[in-house]
Each structure stands twice: as structure tokens, then as C-alpha cells.
């Protein structure tokens, strides 16, 4: 199969959607610059006109509300926020309006809207330009949340999100844009709510979200050298998330490490750990480990960033811990 970067996969999904569905359009900040969304939206304005690829004023609330209204009136908008931090200004149209709309009116209408927000992990951008806020939105009934980690899913989940008659929050991470993977050229959908098994293993289940799913893959390689056979699940969708797949795996391995690119307290990892702990209660041999950011905003200095952002190394440490292995060997993850 053809190999694409994660960013190119997102762009291809946009291009195919825009070509196939005249109701689709994109609005948000940074769409006419190659900088904000990197290669993930590059030159779409040239291909589909600036009437359909609309780089907007700095008005997160109203542009998102506009997208909600357009969706209600029969369009299929994607509203783009180059950073989740900025998207907080649109909390009202997302949480109060889009997420509640179908319910409020007894299911008589849906909001077929994709809200795309980007995490900007690292890059010395500091506490207001890097926040991974997915857990806040995962909490909200009426919102679906997807977080692809692989190029394939980056395309397939965007397609699925566009098909959904409900608001879907699509979160990608800049740190994944250059990663590559096989991506079919044709249009295809990755079902929302289904995880992907990245590696089968017997000893421990590593459950990764977004960029941390990629880190789980790396961790599994390191661990295999140490004789630890890890199963890796890329969650892909956060709401709904694939409980069945995760529980089944943990029932088998008896050990779980949840790796989440967000903060710890009341984060996505808490939900997953709580669910595993309850539903695999009798099979679980050790407490579920959570690899997350500390409850701390992002520092700017690159040295501090290196310590702040957990990765494969910390996942390995957690895996060793639940397996009762010292961390002496193979510390270089």
C-alpha cells in the first residue's frame, strides 16, 4: 500500500471529502497559511477555493457557532482550531450547544459537525499553546472524540467523523505529522469507537492515546528485547472508547499500562484505569499504571520539556513495574 505522512493523510481525507460532498466546507484560523496546520491542509484553498476553505477572523466562539448553525441547516462543516488552547473560547458552542442539541430536541435533529483541534506538544510553546484538553471534552455527553495516532486512522477517522450525524471532536497532534504509514488511496472509514490492536502479547497490555499510542509501539519493542511480550492497543477513539477490546486484553494479560498525552487527575487515563480495575477486577494481577503528564502546566525551556513529556521510557518503566521487574536493564527506551 501507498505510504503517506500523517499530515498528508489528513489532507487527503479533506480533499476527498470536499470533492465528494458539496456540503462540506472548512472554517477556522490558519487555513491560508502552510504554518498553522502544516501539511495537513496545505493549498486546499487553492484546490477548493477560498469560499470553501475559509480562513477566519480571530473569533473562535462565533466561527464555531457558525459551523454549528451551518450543520443544522444542512451543511457538513469542519471547524478548525490550530490549538486546543484557543478552542476553549468556543466551549459554549461546543459543550452547551452542539453536544446538547440532539438531546434537547428529542433526537429530531443532529449536528453533523466535525470540530478539529490540534495539540501542539513540545516546541517550547509553553503552557498556553500546548494543552492536551481532550479529557474535558470526553466528559461531555453528546460529543464523540477521536484521536488518531496513525496515518491510516488519521484519514479513516476523519471520513467516519464526516459521516456521523453528530458533533465529533477530531484531535490530532503536530508531533505526529511527519510520521508515516500505509494509507489506501480510496475513501474509507475507520469506525468510531473501535480500537486497533497494534501488537499481540501475553505479559502486559499497553493502551495508548494519540501520540502516546506511538510511544507504546516503541516501548513494546524495547520491552521485547528484555523478554517482555507486550500487547499494544491504540485506542483511536476516546468517546466512545473500545471497552470490550481493552477489557478482553487485560483479562488475558492481567496487567495494564494506560498512556495518555494529557494531565493525570480526572483525565482520560482515569476513566480507562477505573473501568479496567472494575471490569477486569478478578484478572488484574497488579494495579493499573497510568503514564500521563504530571498535574502541571507545560514549561517552556526545552530541557524542562524533556522531563515534562512522558514517552516510551516511562511506559517501559511502568510495564516493568507491573511485571515486578527492576528497571536496571534496558533503560534506554
Amino acid at each position, binding site marked *: 500500500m501507498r505510504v503517506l505522512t500523517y499530515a498528508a493523510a489528513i489532507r487527503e481525507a479533506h480533499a476527498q471529502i470536499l470533492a465528494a460532498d458539496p456540503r462540506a466546507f472548512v472554517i477556522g484560523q490558519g487555513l491560508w497559511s502552510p504554518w498553522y496546520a502544516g501539511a495537513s491542509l496545505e493549498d486546499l484553498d487553492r484546490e477548493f477555493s477560498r469560499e470553501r476553505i475559509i480562513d477566519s*477572523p480571530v473569533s473562535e466562539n462565533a466561527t464555531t*457557532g457558525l459551523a454549528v448553525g*451551518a450543520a443544522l441547516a444542512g451543511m457538513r462543516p469542519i471547524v478548525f482550531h490550530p490549538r486546543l488552547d484557543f478552542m476553549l473560547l468556543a466551549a459554549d458552542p461546543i459543550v452547551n450547544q452542539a453536544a446538547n442539541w440532539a438531546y*434537547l*430536541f*428529542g*433526537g429530531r*435533529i443532529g449536528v453533523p459537525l466535525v470540530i478539529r483541534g490540534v495539540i501542539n506538544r513540545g516546541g517550547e510553546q509553553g503552557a498556553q499553546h500546548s494543552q492536551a484538553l481532550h479529557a474535558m471534552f470526553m466528559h461531555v455527553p453528546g460529543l464523540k472524540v477521536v484521536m488518531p495516532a496513525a496515518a491510516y486512522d488519521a484519514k479513516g477517522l476523519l471520513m467516519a467523523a464526516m459521516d456521523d450525524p453528530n458533533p465529533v471532536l477530531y484531535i490530532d497532534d503536530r508531533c505526529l505529522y511527519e510520521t508515516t504509514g500505509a494509507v489506501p488511496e480510496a475513501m474509507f472509514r475507520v469506525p468510531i469507537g473501535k480500537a486497533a490492536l497494534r501488537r499481540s502479547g501475553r505479559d502486559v497490555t499497553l493502551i495508548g492515546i494519540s501520540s502516546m499510542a506511538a510511544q507504546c509501539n516503541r516501548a513494546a519493542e524495547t520491552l521485547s528485547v528484555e523478554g517482555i511480550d507486550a500487547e499494544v492497543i491504540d485506542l483511536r477513539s476516546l468517546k466512545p472508547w473500545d471497552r470490550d477490546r481493552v477489557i478482553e486484553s487485560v483479562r488475558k494479560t492481567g496487567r495494564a499500562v494506560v498512556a495518555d498525552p494529557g494531565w493525570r487527575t480526572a483525565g482520560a487515563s482515569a476513566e480507562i484505569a477505573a473501568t479496567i480495575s472494575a471490569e477486569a477486577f478478578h484478572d488484574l494481577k497488579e494495579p493499573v499504571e497510568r503514564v500521563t503528564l504530571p498535574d502541571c502546566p507545560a514549561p517552556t525551556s526545552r530541557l524542562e520539556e524533556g522531563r515534562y513529556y512522558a514517552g516510551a521510557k516511562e511506559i517501559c518503566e511502568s510495564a516493568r513495574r507491573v511485571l515486578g521487574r527492576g528497571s536496571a536493564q534496558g533503560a534506554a527506551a
Partner: protein
Amino acid sequence: MTETAPRRMEQPLAWLQRQWTTMVRIRRAEEAVAALVESGEARCPCHLYIGQEAIAAGVCSALERTDTIWGGHRSHGHYLAKGGPLAAMFAEILGKETGCSGGRGGSMHLFAAGQGILGTVPIVAGTVPLAVGAAMAYKMRGEAHAAVAFFGDGCVEEGHVHESMNLAALYRLPVVFVCENNLYSSHMHWSERRLADHLHRAGEFHSVPGERVDGNDVEAVFAAASAAVSRARAGEGPSFLECRTFRWRGHVGASMDLDVGVKRRGELEEWMQKDPIARLEVRLRACGAVLDERPIREEMQDALEAARQAPFPAAGRFVEHVFAEAACAS
């Protein structure tokens, strides 16, 4: 930006009579709701429209069925004027299965897709950007529809109303911002919230032309709304109408002139003199019209009875519809 529209086309008698019917229907429906609130039969928060009927009537009479309106917490009048079915509104207020929103929304969440009402919600300014979005849809599809955002004077204090006006102007969208200035936002008089009394100028900075209208004069409202809707359909972009009026009842509930426990400044009497329905009746009678409320009262009773008889939603089904099965064709 002009103050008080001088425009005044002569409307035919039949038109005037239709407005009278619309306005009296709204008033009687609201009185019925007030009674339901007072008796405790209705328990969801109800914000009554009495006193403001000419605005809903005048604006909606300038609209087609395919145009959409967007409202807030005080939208019974908008819903009825645009053609929302009466019994479904009563049923919704009573939380019944047959309510226009399936009993899920209550008074503050009205819906009638077939009549261009895709949802009203009580978050102040919540639907203002949505109306702009609907207008964006019409423009993109090349349809000559208009979207109307109804909102109050307090709503203009929400920043995204300003964002919305800028977007609407920038993209030349067919949207009409109808600000119903009833002088109060909840218990707060306008002068406690803003230095100048010139809401019709709210869009000026954003290049949205504005006009001040006597909101208790249905013909004046219609004239201004028609002009704005024509502009919209012609691709000339948004307009802003400040319709000056007064609500007779308190901010929420049935009480007269008492806002959430706070007395207003005694304007009520003066404004009751300006009753939009009485004014219209003077004009109608001068034209020799015969006004008969009986059909309206009968309709009210039938609708109320139907709503009362309707079942509550079946037990345990409240977890349904968190997600829609399909987007609705509007």
C-alpha cells in the same frame, strides 16, 4: 444608520387582520402558560412574551416558511408567529411525549423544523452565531433564504454577538439581527449595563447597518424587517434592527412587573398604554374590521386539553437521543 424607520407602507386590511390573529394567539397562549405556571402544572422556567407580540408577528410576516428563525429563552412568541404548532408547545412546556421537542426541552427549547425553527435555547446569545451559520449555508447553496436571530438587549453584552456581526458582514450573509430591546435584562435596567441608549448602533463598527424601530407597532416592524430580508435575499448582507418594547410580566414566571424578585421602575403602566394589540385594534376598527377572539380561545382550550391528555415520556427512555440517528433535512 437611521433612527426610527419612517418607512410605512399601507398594508391591506387582510394583512392587518392576520397580524392581529398572530398577536392575539401569542397573548392568549402566554396567558394560558402563565396560568399553568401559577397553578404549578408547568414547572419548567417560562419566560413570557406578553407585550412584545408585534415584533414576532411583524418580523415573521416578512418571512417564508423556508427561512429560519433562531431564538432564546423567551421564544414562545417567535415559535407561534413562525407557525409552530400550538398544542406541541403546550405539551413541551408540560414535559409531555407529544411536545415539540419530545418533552426533553421544556419552554426554553422549542423546535419545528418544518416551520424553519431548528431550535431555541436559553444560553444567552447561544443561537446568534448559529443563525449566522444557517445564513452561511443559504449563501453557499445559492438559496435566497434568510436567517433571523431574535435576541434581547442583554444579549448584546455577550462578546460573540459582536464576533457574529463581523462574520456576517464580512461574508455578506443573509441574516437579520433582531434585537428586542425591552429595557431590561432580567432585573437589570439597561442603564445599569451600558452607558448609552443606542442599541441600533451595535453593528455599526462591524458595517452592519442598523435601524431603530417601534417594536410595539407591527406595521413598522414589518416594514423594517421586510427591507432587511430583501437586503438579505439580494445578497447585500446582514442588518440589525433594534425593536423597542417592554415585557409586561417579570423576567421569568407569571408575575406582573416583578423581575426575579426585583421591582422595576414603574414603566409598566406607560407601556401598557402602548399595548401593541390595542393599537392594532384601534386601526382595525377604524377600517371597519370585525374582531372575533372566539376561534382563538377555542383553539387554546383544545390545544391545552390535548397537551394535558398527552402521556409523559415512557419511563427509562430518557437516555435516548444523546446522539441523533440521522441529521435532519431542514
